[in-house]
């Protein structure tokens, strides 16, 4: 009896915490000024909220049906692996498309230079440079 009550309290707490975290992530995505600031909310807050909800579901079904459930753990693991990858790719896309940002946001695109220069299939062509400097830079090392 007390164990069931304790498990119910833990499940209820995890559900409310997950809802609050998901709400906070989406609120950050709605209210921030900048794309690179807006990227912070969903990639951290919403992922943690979904993890809390899935772990609550796993605890609930493990207690009520008397057997151990791992499907929710699978979804949690998958989301926790893929969320940083998605955030990284979205940040690279935002840097690549030269999105406007407010003055407090730091960081620029020197990380993307190696991919921008010398590749044929980019959505936006690289800027024009000095021809001899470009030629010297793009020569392959022996």
């Amino acid at each position, binding site marked *: 009896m007390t164990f069931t009550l304790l498990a119910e309290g833990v499940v209820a707490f995890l559900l409310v915490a997950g809802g609050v975290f998901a709400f906070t992530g*989406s609120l950050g995505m709605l209210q921030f000024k900048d*794309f690179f600031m807006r990227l912070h909310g969903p990639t951290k807050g919403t992922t943690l909220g979904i993890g809390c909800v899935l772990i609550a*579901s796993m605890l609930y079904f493990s207690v009520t049906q008397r057997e151990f459930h791992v499907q929710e753990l699978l979804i949690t693991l998958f989301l926790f692996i893929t969320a940083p990858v998605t955030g990284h*790719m979205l940040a*690279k896309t935002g840097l690549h*498309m030269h999105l406007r940002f407010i003055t407090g946001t730091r960081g620029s695109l020197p990380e993307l230079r190696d991919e921008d220069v010398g590749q044929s299939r980019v959505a936006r062509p690289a800027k024009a440079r000095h021809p001899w400097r470009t030629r010297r830079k793009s020569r392959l090392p022996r």
Partner: protein
Amino acid sequence: MLETALMISLGLIVAAMAMNVLRLARGPDVPDRLLALDTLYVNSIALIVLLGLWLNTKTYFEAAILIAMLGFVGTMAICRYLLRGDIIE
């Protein structure tokens, strides 16, 4: 206690999805809308899990797994398209 927590969580996640749809409608650039779609599918996974908790069935977890994998693949495809101009080079 569990019913109340379920209702609170459902309301919060539906409000989060409404905010995602608002950002999807008024996002100034393409990556903003892409980020809104990404968060929308993650929130829909939570909504499906809460529906499974409410109806006390395990039927919907396969749908949640499918939405997770296909949403990730779709986001990656659109990111590749915006970055390189092509999905599979």
